[in-house]
């Protein structure tokens, strides 16, 4: 409601409002917040970088572990899935609790197509096609119903995909519960690398140039993240993007304007799910396709990352994914270094770090529901 009024007054060009969206107090605050956060972020990374490269104590190992996790290809892959979920939940208000299902389908489509001898572009299309079909299948019956139905159907369907992928009868294609090893489908992707052989070290980051899990995988993954963020930023600023927010805020109002709400929701579901599938493909490139690694747990991580970074923002999802994975490594490393084994052994610190993640998720939603970058005014939605 308040949004509508501001937009209207900006159009009407009141005398004390110069260019629309520039000097209004809330924008000044937003800009100041951005500057403060950027400086803070750079400072944190610089300190960690210094400690990791120039000192030699337990914290040096912890921080270099954190920095390595921050740029890992799997972090990038999850970031893309989070951007997709942001289109669903952040912009359109769709409750998709099965984003890992989209990832898994994308990964299966991609890896199976490569195993069957398709080229890389075709394999990517197969993965995306699988996710589009999945989105249609889920959306047709549920998008006309109340929000929680989509939630129940997406989480159930994601589980059905996982159970089916694990079927021993399908071992020939999906590898059953063992999964498909990355070495079987990765070849074509690593062959594309023009980074050459050898090893490059930048600060705490030391990887092979091409390799299984090297600079090539990182460069491609983060390039895709950048591309996706730009495309999504353009999309949500387009008239179509305004329609999405309108649906989130008041579906009936949009319907009364003569828009086809159902079709727009379906488009959002397909685009967000497609990004999920893209994330799934990048997720399995450096490792393997394993159904159990893309279950509900991963969906929950994606949600946490989205809320951490800030729903309905452009950079929030990426920032959220980086911080989510890094902070867990930080908690684990610090607990490992400073809590004696007699209280928590190595395995228990791993589990303990997840307990902390769960508690952080709860506290975050309770005390800062808009996340790090989010705008509280944008987050009043309630299905």
């Amino acid at each position, binding site marked *: 409601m308040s949004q509508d009024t501001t937009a209207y007054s900006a159009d009407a060009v009141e005398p004390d409002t110069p260019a629309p969206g520039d000097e209004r107090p809330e924008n000044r605050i937003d800009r100041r917040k951005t500057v403060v956060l950027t400086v803070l972020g750079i400072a944190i990374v610089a300190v960690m970088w210094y400690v990791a490269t120039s000192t030699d104590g337990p914290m040096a190992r912890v921080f270099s572990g954190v920095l390595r996790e921050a740029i890992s290809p799997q972090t990038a892959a999850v970031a893309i899935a989070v951007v997709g979920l942001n289109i669903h939940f952040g912009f359109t208000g769709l409750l998709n609790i099965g984003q890992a299902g989209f990832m898994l389908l994308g990964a299966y489509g991609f890896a199976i197509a490569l195993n069957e001898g398709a080229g890389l572009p075709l394999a990517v299309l197969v993965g995306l096609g699988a996710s589009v079909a999945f989105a249609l299948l889920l959306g047709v019956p549920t998008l006309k119903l109340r929000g929680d139905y989509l939630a129940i159907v997406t*989480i159930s369907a994601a589980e059905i995909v996982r159970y089916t992928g694990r079927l021993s009868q399908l071992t020939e294609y999906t590898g059953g519960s063992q999964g498909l090893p990355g070495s079987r489908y990765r070849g074509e992707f690593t062959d594309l690398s023009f980074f050459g052989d050898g090893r490059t070290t930048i600060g705490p980051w030391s990887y092979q140039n091409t390799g299984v899990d090297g600079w090539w995988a990182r460069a491609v993954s983060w390039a895709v993240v950048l591309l996706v963020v730009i495309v999504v930023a353009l999309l949500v600023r387009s008239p179509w993007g305004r329609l999405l927010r309108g649906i989130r805020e008041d579906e009936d109002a949009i319907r009364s304007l003569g828009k086809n709400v159902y079709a727009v929701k379906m488009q959002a579901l397909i685009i967000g799910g497609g990004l999920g599938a893209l994330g799934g493909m990048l997720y399995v490139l450096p490792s393997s396709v394993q159904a159990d690694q893309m279950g*509900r747990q991963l969906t929950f991580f994606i949600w946490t990352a989205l809320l951490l970074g800030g729903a309905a923002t452009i950079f929030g999802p990426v920032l959220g994914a980086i911080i989510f994975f890094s902070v867990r490594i930080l908690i684990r490393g610090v607990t490992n270094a400073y809590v004696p084994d007699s209280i928590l052994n190595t395995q228990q610190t791993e589990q303990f770090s997840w307990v902390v993640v769960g508690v952080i998720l709860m506290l975050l939603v309770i005390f800062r529901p808009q996340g790090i970058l989010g705008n509280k005014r944008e987050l009043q939605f309630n299905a």
Partner: protein
Amino acid sequence: MDHRWRTSRHGVGWVLLLGLLAPLLLFLGSAPASAGEVPADTECTRSETTACLQARLPTGVEVPGIAITVTTPSGEEVTQVTDEAGITVFAVTEEGQYSVLLDTESFPEGVELRPDAATEITPTLAPGGQSFVTFNVRADDYTGAISWWDSLAQSAASGLRLGLLLALAAVGLSLIYGTTGLSSFSHAEQVTLGGMVAFMMVNWWGIPFLLAAVLTVAFCAFTGYFQDRVMWQPLRRRGLGLIQMLIVTIGLSLAMQYAFQVLVGAGNVRVISASPQTASFGPVTLTYQSFWAMGISVVVLSVVGFALLRTRLGRATRAVSDNPALAAASGIDVDRVIRLVWIIATGLAGLSGIMLALVLNGVKWDSGMQILLLLFAAVTLGGLGTAFGALVGAIVIGLVVELTPIFGLPGDLKYATALLILILLLMVRPQGILGKAERVG
């Protein structure tokens, strides 16, 4: 008005508590009798020096008299034969890798090893531990040995059992959804909590099982009270959105799952380590514990149903489910009703968790997560927020899960079938089996 209301609330509280506890007390009275029936060779009590190694044939092939030889790490050989249930238990004292060898010569007519199955299994065991090995044996003519109708009856019984135990948890989930609108993802962990707390009480602190079960239910109910007191009620007052609250329950469920792992470990633990005894009614063979669990569920569910329909508080709960604002306007203390719903729901989930741990041979950190979607399916299938719908939905889901393999679908898909049926039903009848059409959309 208010005063009368309060006295009545206490009355109902006691009725419900008694309803929850009475069957367990009954259980107490009969326990020694069934303990006396344990044959000597299936008895193995774990201690600091003794570990239990149970070798068994798969369910459905309960063949006695098959010789199984265990070789201890120091090379000593012990041979025992399976009992009527196709089980034999070795009490061992050494630490290391054991070898369990199946003597195929001792097979009676009509029993054979599955084509790719092993005759030797090598578990690693230490004193105080336990291990279960199952030899993949099948009847020669698998379909002929057990008629399709018999296996249908057996699966239907298992399905009913699962359905009744799911119903205990699903009714609570449905009551929470009905009164607060919250889909609580941590409800499954409340189920695991029941099994875990019972395990700790029995195995760590040596509390007798039945007392432990009563205490566990009380503790689980207390966690519901506590959560509503410190978290849900303040959040409701602050007007936090339902989606945000749903994510809070996801965080809680994550934290609880890993807390279980930190405390108990990632493996399966058993509340009672003795091998369960079975009883047969015609073609149906289930453990005694299963029959007890089903009986207790029926009694408890009836008490809850009676309380909802006939008591003042039950009517108040349904009124709040229907329309909280109207309920509040007619003098019902909505917050009290919701507090009580949380207590009852978590207590029921705890009870369900204890019995699932007994019936399904143990409890693991993710036991609850395995059934979470079945619970949601039950609640949705019956109609979101209608407690009786949850009961019907749970039994349907239980039956679907257990009957899936009977109708030729892969057994691995049994949970998936339940979810598929849910999705299909939502397409034709989104309000669920017992839901009212106007609640949707």
